[in-house]
């Protein structure tokens, strides 16, 4: 599913070279739920950008769903982001003037899907995250947890190979955080491949596997023996 070998990333800043990633090798199978941890400056954010095809490594290879993406031209890379990757950000990153439905439709717009199909699939995705009642609300009218659920629906709507979540609970209270983790676990149960970046240990404990970064390298890669089960007090409809 996802195969990374010897990935490095070097930035040049003020004449000095900064080695952010120093030869990372990693393999993630389809359907896995992986958490990436590490202190700030460990290279995990840069690694996340590489996984999301937002940036290119200095060297090494990255195969996503059988495609070597490191050499792809800009245009193809945008296509990969559109079809193969679903992003969930800490800051939600919804378009503030567009409704929940329009936000979820956005990736399909760039995929060139027709109006009817976009609508059907967006409604379906919003239903999956339990927001069928709020499709016409705009982000400022939604709570943090609801915003993140719109973002998850948007990430899922093009049926991506991987779902990349960068500190998805970073801006949420604990109750909303549990709700969001419950959704991730439910999606995982349905077979979605999820890679989650977090610095919170208890959040990471919801995943099956925890990879810890330090100084641009993988420090540890461990299976979670008994993942935490997120059980929100309020029922969240994930169907």
């Amino acid at each position, binding site marked *: 599913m996802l195969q990374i070998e010897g990935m490095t990333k070097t930035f040049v800043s003020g004449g000095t070279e900064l080695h952010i990633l120093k030869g990372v090798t990693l393999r993630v199978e389809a359907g896995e739920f992986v958490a990436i941890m590490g202190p700030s400056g460990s290279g995990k954010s840069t690694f996340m*950008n590489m996984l*999301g095809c*937002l*940036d290119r490594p200095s060297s090494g290879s990255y195969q996503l769903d059988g495609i070597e993406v490191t050499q792809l031209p*800009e*245009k193809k890379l*945008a*296509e990969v*982001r*559109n*079809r193969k990757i679903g*992003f969930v*950000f800490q800051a939600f*990153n*919804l*378009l503030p*003037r*567009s409704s929940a439905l329009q936000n979820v439709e*956005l*990736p399909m*717009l*760039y*995929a*060139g899907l027709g109006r009817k199909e976009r609508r059907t699939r967006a409604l379906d995705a919003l239903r999956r995250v339990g927001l069928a009642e709020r499709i016409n609300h705009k982000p400022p009218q939604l709570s943090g947890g609801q915003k993140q659920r719109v973002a998850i629906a*948007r990430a899922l709507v*093009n049926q991506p190979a991987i779902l990349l979540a960068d500190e998805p609970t970073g801006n949420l209270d604990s109750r909303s955080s549990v709700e969001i983790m419950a959704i991730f676990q439910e999606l995982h149960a349905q077979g979605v491949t999820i890679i989650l970046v977090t610095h919170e240990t208890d959040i990471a404990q919801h995943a099956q596997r925890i990879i810890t970064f330090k100084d641009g390298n993988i420090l540890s890669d461990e299976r979670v023996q008994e993942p935490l089960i997120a059980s929100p007090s309020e029922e969240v409809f994930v169907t």
Partner: protein
Amino acid sequence: MNLLESFRIAIEGIWANKMRSGLTMLGIVIGITSVIAVNTLGQGGQQALVNEVEKFGATSFNVMVDWNSKEEFKNQDLTVEDTEILTKASPYIEKMVPVNYGSADIQGPKKSERTNIMATGADYLAIQSNIKLVKGRFISKDDDLEKRAVIVLDDQAAAALFKKQNPIGQRVRMYNTSVVVIGVVKEDKFRFDMSQSGTAYIPIRFDQTFQDEPYVSSLLGKASSKETVELAMQQTKNYLNRKHNHTDHYMVRSLQQELSQLNQMTDMLTLVFSVIAGISLFVGGIGVMNIMLVSVTERTREIGIRKALGAQRKDILIQFLIESVIVCLIGGTVGVILGVGAAAIITYFAGLPPFLAWDSVVLAFGFSSVIGIFFGLYPANKAAKLDPIEALRYE
């Protein structure tokens, strides 16, 4: 992504910043309004001139002694007899009359009035098709030959001297002589003629009785057709030079020649004003670019999100380009409406026939789209080239 969606997004963007978009449009509105108004007025004015000339006789021409002539000036350089000979001899000249212009105080029954005097022959009315007889009769051949003391007034002079009285048969005094009013004419004035005083017509041979040495100041001719105007003019010139022992002593001009000169002048004026209007349009375009740059900076994060979700460079480029084109097109539409309206109001008050410069309307729309693309391209390209990581980090 299809174009329709791009339009929707662009219109949303414009709508979200109504005030700002409106002010940006204003620059385009003013530019297009002035371009349209200037062109419509310029072309409308020219069209009106052409119409007037058609009406006033595209076939008529005027003969005078050339004031720049190096040859000796004589009082008999033009004579009444010349017109009679030329009319008979030339197949291209249909009619010709001598004309003396002047002005005199005419003493009516109640008051005296300064009036333009036009001393001419019987065929004058047949040449000046814009002058029509309303009452009585015009100067006849016999009036002229017998130097009768008769006068024809135009409606303006008649009204000034006689108020509502019937002037026919009444006597007025001019040149210290009593003359009889025999007719009233109405002049469909040349639209660009601003003169306020009335005109009176007298037989030219009668006029010459007041001169120590009779003279004629100009001849007015009518060619047999539009095509023969040049020939008629040439023949007249040749004949006069030969007859009066000159080589190149005369100036012959047709209304059409004067029209083309006038056209050159209005063309020049229109061009100058168009350039000024064009500059204001250009400034408007810079305003659009400025606002688009602000908009791109403001929406950096939005661009980052769109790119992360799979927007291609061209998607972003088109989105912003369409936005600036729409701003310019709306501005252009309003400008066209205002420009046509302004021109209509001005032509109405100036008494010109209504005129719509379709080509400049079409041009204005084309031009505002080009401005939208030209001034939108740089900001849109800047947006399209944004690095998604940087853009997502932007606060």
